[in-house]
């Protein structure tokens, strides 16, 4: 009985609520509406209209096609789930899960809000934060590799092989590009990183907050370099164009998911977009101030200053502040998702050797030099 009395039921209940809420209320709908946004934006960029028909069923209300993602989901659920005879059944069934799970698992350590009613808006506040993200995010390559290998067909196999080598070359620059951040902050905990940015200005735009000095201006270029390298590596990590080598429609039919149909295909699809959301959330957390949005404020006591809105205020103001932070965070994520889509429909795919050259010769070196640059600045201006 001692064991049960030691359990913090409040913690378990709130964690469960946060987990279910973030997955089923926020991320999964966000995934389907990212797909919708992708289709609409790509259409508009190509002077087409995109899906603008599906609205509320059995009525003539169209709502610019906002019902399309729901119709797509229904279609995926009702389609025939085909398992080809020549596949390795166990790994063939395992691969879609492995593509989907890491993307959602990564969200656990990302702070998506400050506090709400005293509960911190992060599912797991762990000190290894970013290391956990890198460790779990690399697992998603197993989904692709296993799908490619178990399908027992040449196009998926080529997709899987490409995915592996791409992952190896971009994991390096991904990891190295964030080291300057930790040289500056001395912490790996994502919650602490966001708190620091809320107090001192976002790492990419440090124009307000405490500790305004020459040192921060000197540190801005390394941070911008980190941001660019990190963002491009995230593009490669999530297999988005211009780095969509494993999928590569024009060369490999559909790449690693050629042999998949119905909900198993949908899981790969969901995994890809969930990874995009996780990647955007990570960029927002590390470089763009997470849930923080500076609001210029004027009061008699303090004069004109930048107010920090979070959930720490008592009563209704605290609740509104907490909700405002959550909305801010997902608005930033949505803007970055827009960037992902914009880039995808602009740039052509890199040739395979160009991609490897970019990863190994440019980004790896840039990230490495950037570490020494930041270390130098921090050495002379501690």
């Amino acid at each position, binding site marked *: 009985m001692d064991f049960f009395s030691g359990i913090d039921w409040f913690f378990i209940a709130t964690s469960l609520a946060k987990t279910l809420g973030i997955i089923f209320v926020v991320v999964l709908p966000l995934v389907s509406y990212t797909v919708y946004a992708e289709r609409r*934006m790509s259409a*508009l*960029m*190509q*002077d*087409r*209209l995109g899906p603008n028909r599906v609205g509320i069923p059995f009525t003539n209300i169209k709502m610019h096609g906002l019902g399309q993602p729901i119709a797509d989901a229904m279609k995926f659920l009702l389609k025939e789930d085909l398992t080809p005879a020549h596949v390795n059944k166990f790994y063939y069934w395992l691969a879609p899960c492995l593509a989907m799970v890491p993307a959602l698992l990564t969200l656990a350590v990302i702070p998506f809000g400050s506090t709400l009613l005293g509960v911190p808006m992060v599912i797991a506040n762990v000190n290894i934060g970013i290391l956990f993200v890198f460790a779990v995010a690399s697992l998603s390559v197993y989904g692709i590799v296993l799908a490619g290998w178990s399908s027992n067909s040449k196009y998926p196999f080529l997709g899987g092989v490409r995915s592996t080598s791409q992952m190896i070359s971009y994991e390096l620059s991904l990891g190295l590009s964030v080291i300057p951040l930790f040289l500056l902050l001395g912490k790996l905990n994502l919650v602490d990183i966001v708190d620091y940015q809320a107090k001192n200005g976002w790492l990419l735009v440090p124009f307000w907050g405490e500790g305004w000095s020459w040192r921060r201006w000197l540190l801005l270029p390394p941070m911008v370099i980190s941001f660019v390298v990190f963002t491009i590596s995230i593009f490669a990590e999530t297999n988005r164009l211009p780095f969509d080598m494993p999928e590569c429609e024009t060369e490999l039919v559909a790449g690693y998911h050629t042999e998949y149909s119905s909900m198993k295909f949908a899981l790969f699809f969901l995994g890809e977009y969930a990874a995009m959301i996780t990647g955007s959330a990570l960029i927002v957390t590390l470089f763009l101030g997470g849930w923080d949005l500076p609001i210029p404020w004027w009061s008699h006591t303090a004069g004109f200053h930048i107010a920090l809105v979070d959930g720490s205020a008592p009563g209704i103001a605290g609740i509104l502040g907490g909700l405002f932070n959550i909305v801010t965070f997902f608005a930033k994520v949505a803007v970055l998702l827009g960037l992902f889509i*914009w*880039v995808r*429909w*602009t*740039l052509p795919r890199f040739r395979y050797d160009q991609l490897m050259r970019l990863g190994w010769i440019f980004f790896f070196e840039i990230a490495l030099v950037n570490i020494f640059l930041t270390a130098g600045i921090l050495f002379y201006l501690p």
Partner: protein
Amino acid sequence: MATIVSRPKLNFREKLYLPAIAAGLAITIKHLKNMLLGRTKVVMQYPEEKWDSHLPAHYRGAPVLVRDKERERCVACQLCEFICPPRAIRIKPGELPRTSNFEKVEKFPLEFDIDMIRCIYCGLCEEVCPEQAIFLRKDYAITGLTRAEMVHDKKKLYEMGGEMDGLVNKWNPKK
């Protein structure tokens, strides 16, 4: 003889690759902006907007049969049936009774079927018809749920064609 195409020499700006990316991003966002502001012309939204009023006079839609005031024009000569490239037309000729005012015409179609699944809208039937009884009209949305529904019989063809005035060219001395 094979020609060797030398690679173009790129200057520093082109080698940097980034200006090209920025230019590309600018182009796509410009198109997006123009679409959102309604400056771009988009294609006709078909079921809501239709092309019908813009159809030219010579448009070749579904073939139909027409009748005169007194009688049906078709004399079941079967020329259209013979010329039809996909063999979409089937005619079963019948004999006009002696009592008819047009007894000298002798024949009329007992059955006249056009299989609209086969029809290729070539207009040869219209061209070959000596009696000007068959015309290609502007109906283009011919749909059906079964194959049988897609076969237009004589009743349907006259329903779509209706009545047509004027002298048949064959009897017009000027033509």
